[in-house]
């Protein structure tokens, strides 16, 4: 059998994970429904005044996105770990980092991207302006992949541990704080008439950094967990 090129491998892993996710659609939908529910609970908790809701909206949406991504991270490697696929993947002659990158991208497409798509609708519930919504979506597009990537480190480290889910959140949430801050600050900047470029650039910079380092770190974490 010929050795696959890295690009082909990446594509193959993404495609496989997407197909698997489509076979278990309920998992994908649960994350999305969770996201919508958490966001909708906030107005019930703090009251329906539109002024306050408009102010809270970016924070609420971002925190909900953060929590929703934590929820789905546990599944990133666990199914493959349980049925032995992960072990086979680690034996593959290609770089494990690329494989992990493929899984991260697939995870984002399945659990991060749908959140970005429904976020504007939820934003309307909070009476956000069109401009703010646009910045929110841009921020989420840049930020949610970082959550998937940083989260994958935690997912790899907690692989197969008891109480993995809660532990995973404990490890990953503090590391995601910068993303949360830059994402919400961008929206606040636009609603107070400031430039959004700085915050979005910082998010993009974090994305580039994460793309560079997290696949490799995650691969190392997997090696530690699997030996």
């Amino acid at each position, binding site marked *: 059998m010929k050795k696959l090129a890295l690009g082909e491998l990446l594509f193959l892993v993404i495609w496989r994970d997407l197909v698997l996710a489509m076979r278990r659609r309920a998992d994908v939908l649960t994350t999305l429904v969770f996201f919508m529910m958490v966001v909708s609970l906030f107005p019930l908790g703090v009251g329906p005044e539109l002024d306050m809701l408009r102010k809270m909206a970016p924070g609420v949406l971002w925190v909900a996105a953060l929590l929703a991504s934590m929820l789905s991270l546990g599944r990133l490697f666990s199914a493959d770990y349980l049925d032995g696929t992960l072990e086979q993947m680690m034996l593959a002659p290609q770089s494990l980092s690329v494989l992990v990158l493929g899984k991260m991208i697939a995870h984002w497409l399945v659990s991060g991207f749908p959140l970005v798509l429904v976020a504007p609708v939820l934003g309307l519930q909070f009476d956000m302006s069109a401009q703010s919504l646009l910045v929110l979506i841009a921020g989420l597009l840049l930020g949610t992949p970082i959550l998937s990537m940083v989260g994958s480190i935690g997912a790899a480290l907690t692989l197969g541990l008891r109480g993995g889910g809660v532990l995973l959140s*404990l490890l990953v949430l503090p590391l995601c704080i*910068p993303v949360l801050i830059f994402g919400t600050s961008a929206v606040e900047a636009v609603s107070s008439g400031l430039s959004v470029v700085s915050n979005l650039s910082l998010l993009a910079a974090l994305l580039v950094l994460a793309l560079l380092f997290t696949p490799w770190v995650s691969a190392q*974490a997997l090696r*530690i967990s699997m030996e």
Partner: protein
Amino acid sequence: MAINWFKYSAPSAFYNLAGKVIPWFAVPATILFVAGIYTGFFVAPSDAQQGEAYRIIFIHVPASILSMFLYLVMAAYAALGLIFNTRLSSMMATALAPTGALFAFVSLWTGAFWGKPMWGAWWVWDARLTSELILLFLYFGFIALHASIDDVRRADRAAALLAIVGAVNVPIIYFSVRWWNTLHQGATIKFTGTSMHIAMQQAMFMLLLAGWLYAVAVTLFRVRSIILEREKNTRWVAELVEVQQ
């Protein structure tokens, strides 16, 4: 003469060395602590603007400095353990974590005590307070991850990776929190660089040194327990006087 640097990386050799040097750290730590507290609370004059309440900084500042410094030391030991596969380095990292978390907690606690009379609130979302809180969370993550993996070697390596990722992330977190804070509420009350009274400096310095020595002594004490626990099936542990008794 070639010095064998790695002699004390063997847990059995280090166990004895640590046992011998602990008093050399513990005793000065106690003396400096008492002297520092005395200077801070009785000798140093009260502050012109802040009155007596400022004296909390004699505890607060050393605790904050040490909590941050110890995280870096912990990450460095963890990295050593991961790279050179030395068991002792990982044990040191594990032993440092609770002390670091303790200092972070003390720093937050005293910060709240200082904030109440100064800012009128127990908690202000000040950039430094917030970063300290996040640092405490990072310590908790390290301890929790280490505790939930049964295989010690795997726990060491996994926690080491987490500590390194955390250490890389700390500056990013710190600056993001700082910018977030300035965007939200502008400058809060800060220590303007008024020249400190000499007694204040002395007290602060003594307590910082005391905290540092305390951290070393406690870490060595803890690492001795960890060594005993992990090496309990070896012959040298069975031959120890304190074990045989």
